[in-house]
């Protein structure tokens, strides 16, 4: 499968969202998910000939592998040499898991008309929705549901009160739910 520039573009939000789920909270200030995605897209573009799959699912899995490498390197650079052999594998597995969760979180896999839309497509669409949210709401949702930080820690990371974070979560989820019903489940 030959992949064009525009095709890669379709995955930008998806990859940026996944990158967010993997960035350690203490590196939030120093690492920008957009940069990581930019680098990943560049690598993917250069290695496009290596891609051997022919389905969307395979392409997305391949992009996740690349993203995992970039995230691992970025984090390693920040830590200056402390490395864990399994870091990259872990990141990749977590990315796979985050992606699967993305597909299932909002829309029940039973309810999705799988004939109409594949899980990968759902994941990509949900990622688009999440990326459209106001920054604060999106950050709260990623930290709380994907990184599974308790409310207090999310509040500390974002420099807000727990109540404010709860409000962000509520408004974010309400928007997601509404838009998902509008755009994903016909």
């Amino acid at each position, binding site marked *: 499968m030959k992949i064009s520039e525009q095709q890669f573009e379709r995955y930008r939000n998806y990859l940026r969202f996944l990158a967010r789920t993997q960035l350690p909270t203490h590196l939030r200030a120093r690492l920008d998910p957009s940069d990581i995605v930019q680098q990943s897209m560049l690598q993917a573009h250069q290695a496009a000939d290596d891609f051997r799959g022919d389905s969307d699912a395979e392409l997305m899995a391949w992009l996740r592998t690349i993203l995992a490498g970039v995230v691992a390197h970025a984090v390693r650079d920040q830590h200056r040499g402390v490395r864990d*052999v399994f870091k*990259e594998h872990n990141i990749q597995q977590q990315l*796979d898991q985050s992606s*699967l969760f993305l597909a299932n*979180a909002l829309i029940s896999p039973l309810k999705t008309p799988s004939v109409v839309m594949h899980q990968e497509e759902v994941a990509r669409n949900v990622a688009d929705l999440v990326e459209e949210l106001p920054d604060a709401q999106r950050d709260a949702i990623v930290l709380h549901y994907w990184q599974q930080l308790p409310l207090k820690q999310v509040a500390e990371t974002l420099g807000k009160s727990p109540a404010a974070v*709860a409000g962000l979560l*509520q408004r974010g989820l309400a928007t997601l739910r509404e838009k998902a019903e509008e755009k994903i489940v016909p």
Partner: protein
Amino acid sequence: MSTPNHSQPQLFRELEEVLAEYLQDVEAGVKVDAEALAARYPKHRHELLEFIATDQQFRERSKTNSEAFQRTVLSGISQSAGSAPAITTPLQKVGEYELLEEIDRGGMGVVFKARHPTLRRTVAIKMLLAGAFASEEAERRFRREAAAAARLNHPGIVPVYDVGVVDHPGSLQGQTWFAMALVEGTDLARRIESELFDSSATAQLAIRIVDAIHFAHGKGVIHRDLKPANILLDENKNPHITDFGLSRSQDDNETQLTADGQIFGTPGYMSPEQASGKNASVGPETDIYSLGAVMYCMLTGRPPFRANSTVATLQQVVHDAPAPPRLLNRSVHPDLESIILKCLEKNPIDRYATADELKRDLEHFLKGESVSAASINLVGYLGRVLASSRNSEFLEGWSRALYAVSAVVLVFHVVLQFVPLTPTQATLINAGKYSLLLGVIWRARDGILTPQNPVERTIWSLWIGYILTYVATEIMVRLDSSPNANLYAIMSLVSSVILLVLGGHLWGGCYLIGGLFAILAVVLTAIPQLSIVLFGSLWAIVFFLLARSYQKQSRVSSHQV
């Protein structure tokens, strides 16, 4: 509590406080009653209920998702299409072993090349991913099986040296690992990809694989997941079977569907009993089936069943006959084809009883002697057809009811034959017979009279057709009162057709009885005076034989459970 004079921002803040409290309760493991909470804050009812529903959905999905995910990874489904960069940093330790590099991924987890520093031994470490087991019991059983497999000492079986759990802290903590011999070379799946085997090469290699399997069966170990990828080939092309008994843990869940509808194991090589989830009947014959599937693949380059989706493949494994290998590769020897098809029989009883029996047949084939599975042998073929039993799982509970049906049919026909009756009385007795039969069926099926599965639907249609024909014939015979019209001779012909149909659906013996009914039709035309009792007796015999055969079947299957 809110007061009526709250302004909008104050209301907002109150909602946020309530939500924060709810979230912290959930995190602390407190069960929150959403309705009660909503009742306490009626102003926020809508937002609260909606948020709690979505929040709980997210939490639940995140949980089931990670479980499903781990199973997915375990089964090797989530392999990426591009190559993942290999890890080369040494000195990560698992037990006494130092991991050198990743060599494979998939199946049960990740495989590393590793070295034992004091023994100077290079091994393969297979790492099972955490969360691989449904329960502690499943994990214990798995270890027991692995220990049994580890004791298998045979040149055709990859020896397991060591089993353990990573106990030092780190990302691998808690994961189960195996240290086994490192076989340098390739595996049968890759070998087949590059080149197919011819008939004699297949038989030669298969004999060595079967030999190893026979050895394992002798020690009470069943492989359960035999497939080309589990047969490693060393540099001298010697086969070494790996992953013995390791697939046990995968049998525990009844339905093994992951979030995206994938199934565990390798459906193309899975036996019908595994594919239909009848794990209790998994035995040595299961491996025999897989051996047949492996030989099939060596000759044709594909497993016996392959469909677009896993579910479709499993359906085929359970219901369809495999395409004969010679259809895909004309050069396959007919005798070898017969051997393979015998391995691939749906019913374990119809396969080779032991690996040794299979091995002997393969040896006969190589020497050019006749093989026991050969289909050229017409008598043997007919014998198999007559003894074949299909769909018995649908009808196992029927044996007692069928005995009753047999008795009812016999008694009524004897009465109709020998007790002098007026036509009205005979009709009444016939009506009584049918209500009694319906009653028997009604009891046997706990009050359900409608057919519940395809086999029963067939039988129902046949029965209704039979009764309609009977009534129509009766009317015809009465209208045309010529002495030659014999109701029972005509019904014998109808019965003959019905039994030939049942022969294909239930039991091969029905073919034989169908033939008898055809003969009976002729006999009855000659001696019409005994029509009723002869006709009734033959039907009684049919029901009796079917009852006996299901009684045996259910004894066999309850034995296996």
